[in-house]
């Protein structure tokens, strides 16, 4: 699993998580199966659940850096994220690019736990985000002296509870039949939050507004502050996720994904494992939803968490890499930056020829086509591409 995660933005994040340790235990056999191309003999294993994007177990030979360099990289990354970027970035970068990037990454990490690691397809991520956002809002509103971060935590836990509820059918149905359960969650939550005024404190259109973003007496309301707040929450939870998927629970998830019967045979409690995946995933989505509402948008209505948002997060993990934490970040960066890039290109070169509606449609076509191309050509997503690139660079003078 770990090969592809060492790349890109979160390379140093997970190195932090690893704490310099190199796990030596072997991966479960199924997770170690190489992704099959059609006709490859190993495909029998991969047939069952999601294609394991789990890679061959990392061998000791492929790491070029000593522990000292790794630590330096980590510190450098932290310095960059918490020091250099806030010092150099402007409000546009914080509000329009960095914050949505971070928040969507967190949501994608959540969905990746469920879909990429545990093999349960979900089209309801946005619903769990909505639950997290509205629950945090209500905890802040109704409990006096509720600290902001605790409200995020409680919002996440509420989302986790709702996630478990809609995950219950996963004992009986699996794979893509589960989209029925998750779509039910998507439509039901959106409806309930709109119809019952209590959730939005009886706002006429169901809109909730961000509370003052104060943590331990510090005000985080400026764009820079909201960036730092998101960064802190997202990094913390990502480190946790990295450790989770590398630990016993993560191994169980992958075993269930690859072949649930075999997993049951070796003594993994299937229902418990699946429900934990739903709970963890929904928790992450819930916190991401709270950040989306408070740190990114400021005000949000239930329809801000519609099916389109669920698709967006699913696309992030397909493009970024199923079953890869760094993939969630790469995919999120991709999906945040591509529309901006296309807009800029269009205004620079085709202004007047192509109108905004066309660009939106073209974006759809390009996103859709990219998903197909990635599924066909590189199911392990951007994470694998970056990993391959890194390998090439590392060996460059010796091996072509």
């Amino acid at each position: 699993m770990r090969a592809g995660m060492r790349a890109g933005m979160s390379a140093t994040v997970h190195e932090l998580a690893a704490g310099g340790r190199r796990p030596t235990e072997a991966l479960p056999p199924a997770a170690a199966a190489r992704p099959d191309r059609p006709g490859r003999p190993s495909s029998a294993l991969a047939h069952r659940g999601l294609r394991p994007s789990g890679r061959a177990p990392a061998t000791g030979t492929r790491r070029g850096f000593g522990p000292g360099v790794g630590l330096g990289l980590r510190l450098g990354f932290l310095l960059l994220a918490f020091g250099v970027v806030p010092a150099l970035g402007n409000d546009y970068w914080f509000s329009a690019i960095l914050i949505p990037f971070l928040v969507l990454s967190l949501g994608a990490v959540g969905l990746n736990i469920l879909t990429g690691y545990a093999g349960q397809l979900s089209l309801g991520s946005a619903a769990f985000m909505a639950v997290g956002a509205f629950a945090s809002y209500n905890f802040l509103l109704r409990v006096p002296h509720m600290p902001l971060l605790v409200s995020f935590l409680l919002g996440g836990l509420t989302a986790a509870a709702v996630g478990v509820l809609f995950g219950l059918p996963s004992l009986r149905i699996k794979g893509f039949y589960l989209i029925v359960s998750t779509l039910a969650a998507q439509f039901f939550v959106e409806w309930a939050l709109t119809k019952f005024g209590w959730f939005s404190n009886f706002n006429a259109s169901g809109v909730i507004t961000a509370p003052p973003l104060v943590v331990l007496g510090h005000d985080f309301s400026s764009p820079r502050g909201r960036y730092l707040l998101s960064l802190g929450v997202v990094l913390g939870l990502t480190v946790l996720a990295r450790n989770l998927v590398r630990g016993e629970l993560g191994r169980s998830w992958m075993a269930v994904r690859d072949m649930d019967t075999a997993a049951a045979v070796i003594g993994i409690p299937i229902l418990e494992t699946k429900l934990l995946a739903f709970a963890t995933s929904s928790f992450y989505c819930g916190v991401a939803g709270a950040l989306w509402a408070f740190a990114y948008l400021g005000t949000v209505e239930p329809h801000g968490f519609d099916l389109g948002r669920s698709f967006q997060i699913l696309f992030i993990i397909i493009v970024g890499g199923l079953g890869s934490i760094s993939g969630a970040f790469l995919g999120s960066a991709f999906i945040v930056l591509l529309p901006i890039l296309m807009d800029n290109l269009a205004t620079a070169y085709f202004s007047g020829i192509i109108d905004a509606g066309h660009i939106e449609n073209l974006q759809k076509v390009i996103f859709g086509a990219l998903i197909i191309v990635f599924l066909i050509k590189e199911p392990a997503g951007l994470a694998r591409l970056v990993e391959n690139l890194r390998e090439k660079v590392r060996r460059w003078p010796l091996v072509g």
Partner: protein
Amino acid sequence: MSSLTSWFANSSFFWEVLVGGLLAGVMYSMVAIGFVLIYKASGVFNFAQGSMVLFAALTFVSILERGVPFVLALGITLGAMLLLAGLIERVVLRPLVNRPPIVLFMATLGLSFVIEGLAQTLWGSQVHGLELGIEDRPFELHGIMVSQFDLFAAGTAGALVLVLGLLFNKTRFGLALRAVADDQLAALAVGIDLRRVWGMVWAAAGLVALVAGLLWGARVGVQFSLSLIVLKALPVLIIGGFSSIAGTIVGGLLVGATEKLAEVYIGPRFDGGIENWFPYVLALLFLLVRPTGLFGEPQVERA
């Protein structure tokens, strides 16, 4: 006692809602049939079926608005659908042969984005009206108002099912298709051209999408929301069973009727709007009690 009498007083209203729901359900079935065709032959759950409906309706209406005669426009649209089906089979599905169903599903999700974007890039995204020349005048039948157009739609759906049934059960192609649905390897072994069968099935799904697109388009206007019908067809499929055409009809009727009845009788307590999620809850219950649906074949899991 008094509630019973009031129920009888309102019973014609009840029947009207029921019939309206059943007829709407037939329309859901039309979309669901396209799914079943492809699912039977290749095991792909084609999320892009809704986009194909949109593409067909939008293409037809746009050609019609440019002054092309009805029949010619129909022919051109049919040609476009067959071309689209061929392209999908060739470009998207063939490279994905032998991959897990969940991956194929996600590919069709991407496909739906491509088709939607393409249709709206080509033809614009404004709402078009579509007139099929059928008067939508409700008439009275035993004291119940029935929409003439919905009856026509139901008749079309019936004819479509009949034709598909004949195709599956009485022709050599149908035999090949059933063989492929049963066991792809065995079908290959006896010399059935898998690619041809898949191409044909996608073409048939394109045709069904065209019919569904015309009927839905005439009913609600040709617009983007047509592609969202896919979300209604999903519970229909679960309830009816993924591999049975008869199942989609029964499932469609069931979903249409219960959703309308629930909206009218339970909805007001919650200020309405339960139509959106009610079919899903119904489908979920079905999945828990009878995972193969009403008419689906129980799947033997080999792993």
